[in-house]
């Protein structure tokens, strides 16, 4: 992106960054007072209601890409570009019944790693943790880099400053407030995002005649309205399966399922899916309007902000800046909290210190959150463009986890051999496809191979899992915790 295309001056950018940074940290400290114990810090007391639950799921899934890249997608791939992006909401919808079952089977669970360990045993658990941590770090780094790049493009704030401030703010409020702070700020951020999109989209809509707009698109760029686009359809299904893999396996979503009150999680995820669904179409429409509004686009990545600032003036530019900042913060804070939970619960507590006290675990959380923030900052610092590829590369890895997770929740005959074989074969086939064919088919191939292998191994060596083993008792300071490798290996 080119700094010369900035739609806001640097001083205003710094002022907005400072104002919202201080606001999020102050709210984090305020809400953090509710986190009196580890369960409060990691899972907001397992009592989150429908409104906050739905908002946090929606806001986390709205990343800076949803705001900045969808207009570009629409500009390049037309109607299918918008629709392909909006299919990512299906992952949230399909996770809704899973969240209900997760809450029922594991009322005392902490992480997605807990589930894989108890359901499939240590080998699948370690593989799963590897995939999950690689993916989470890739997402975290891509969001940190996107923060620096997008804020620089919008306001001219130097990359290092923008990236550093956004990471620092998210680390601080996650550190002080844990999941309470993350969920509370997510609600405000989701409202800002929705209102921002409606205001800009509404004003743009009032400036164009839709019938004339369609006729002009059909005449000048018929490909954007074409129904049959094989590559677009393939990428649509690929994105859909990448999204399923991301949501089904990642602790960001599992921690929310554990954090919500009984009977709320499935409704909250279904609602968040509906809230998320129209956003890519609305932002995509804003991008498509660049031509009819006579806006010159020197840089396709900046089409959304350029249209907003053209129709709403400096207010439009401020609005886009704030919406992008909110979308970045709502994803980074969730990733920091959920990845730190995974490392503290699965690696520190289950692998290294099974008898750690609550105070020790709370201290470990602090170190892990700061460490994650620092590691992300160091990786983001050199601004290596190729790092973004790691996120795409993790697509086939996470897609291989789709069926082990689904079968693990609903099919008692699936044992650890099937899960391990599915994870390994799906990842290998997906990675081969990524390099041999292209990114647009890698996740699809990974999910298909993983499914076939899981079904075949389950048919050949069926297990009979006892669901009650998923409800693991809390190891107390007075009670000897069982070593993790005995806790829940699934016998075929």
């Amino acid at each position, binding site marked *: 992106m080119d700094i010369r295309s900035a739609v806001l001056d640097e001083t205003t950018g710094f002022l907005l960054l400072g104002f919202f940074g201080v606001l999020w940290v102050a709210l984090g400290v305020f809400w953090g007072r*509710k986190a009196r114990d580890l369960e409060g810090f990691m899972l*907001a*007391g397992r*009592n*989150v*209601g*429908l*409104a*906050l639950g*739905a*908002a946090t799921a*929606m806001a986390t899934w709205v990343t800076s890409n949803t705001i900045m890249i969808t207009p570009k997608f629409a500009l390049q791939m037309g*109607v299918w570009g*918008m629709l392909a992006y909006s299919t990512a909401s299906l992952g949230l919808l399909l996770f809704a019944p899973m969240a209900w079952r997760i809450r029922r089977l594991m009322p005392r669970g902490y992480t997605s790693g807990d589930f894989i360990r108890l359901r499939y045993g240590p080998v699948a658990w370690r593989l799963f943790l590897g995939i999950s941590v690689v993916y989470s770090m890739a997402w975290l780094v891509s969001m940190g880099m996107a923060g620096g790049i997008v804020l620089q493009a919008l306001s001219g704030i130097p990359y290092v400053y923008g990236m550093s401030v956004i990471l620092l703010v998210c680390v601080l409020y996650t550190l002080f407030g844990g999941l*309470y702070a993350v*969920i509370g700020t997510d*609600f405000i951020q*989701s*409202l800002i995002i*929705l*209102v921002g*999109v*409606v205001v800009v*989209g*509404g004003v743009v*809509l009032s400036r164009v005649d*839709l*019938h004339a707009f*369609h*006729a002009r698109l*059909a005449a000048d760029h*018929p490909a954007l*309205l*074409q*129904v049959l686009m094989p590559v677009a359809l393939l990428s649509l299904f690929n994105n859909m399966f990448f999204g399923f893999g991301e949501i089904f396996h990642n602790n960001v979503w599992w921690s929310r399922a554990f954090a919500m*009150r009984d009977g709320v999680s499935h409704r909250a995820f279904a*609602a968040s899916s*509906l*809230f998320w*669904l*129209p*956003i890519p*179409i*609305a932002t995509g*429409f804003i991008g498509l309007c660049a031509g009819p509004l006579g806006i010159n686009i020197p840089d396709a990545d900046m089409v959304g902000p350029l249209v907003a600032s053209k129709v709403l003036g400096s207010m439009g530019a401020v609005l886009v800046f704030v919406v992008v900042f909110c979308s970045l913060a709502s994803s980074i804070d969730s990733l920091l909290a959920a990845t730190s939970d995974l490392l503290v619960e699965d690696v520190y507590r289950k692998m290294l210190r099974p008898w750690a006290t609550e105070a020790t675990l709370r201290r470990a959380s602090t170190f892990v959150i700061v460490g994650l923030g620092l590691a992300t900052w160091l990786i983001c610092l050199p601004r290596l463009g190729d790092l973004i590829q790691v996120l795409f590369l993790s697509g086939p890895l996470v897609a291989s986890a789709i069926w082990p997770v689904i079968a693990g929740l609903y099919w008692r005959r699936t044992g650890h051999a099937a899960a391990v074989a599915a994870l390994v074969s799906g990842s290998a086939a997906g990675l081969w496809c990524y390099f041999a064919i292209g990114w647009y088919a890698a996740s699809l191939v990974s999910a298909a191979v993983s499914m076939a292998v899981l079904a075949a191994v389950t048919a050949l060596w069926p297990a009979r899992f006892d669901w009650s083993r998923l409800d693991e008792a809390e190891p107390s300071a007075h009670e000897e915790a069982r070593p993790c490798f005995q806790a829940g290996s699934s016998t075929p």
Partner: protein
Amino acid sequence: MFPSWFFNALIVAALILTAVSAAGLVTLLVRDWRNGRLW
């Protein structure tokens, strides 16, 4: 080619649904808060 009516309906529906989502979130928040079930 996507017909004009489909294209127009898609855009208008997306904007209306986004506005309804914002209103829905606030309504849910007020309801949860009144019932003491925020968190």
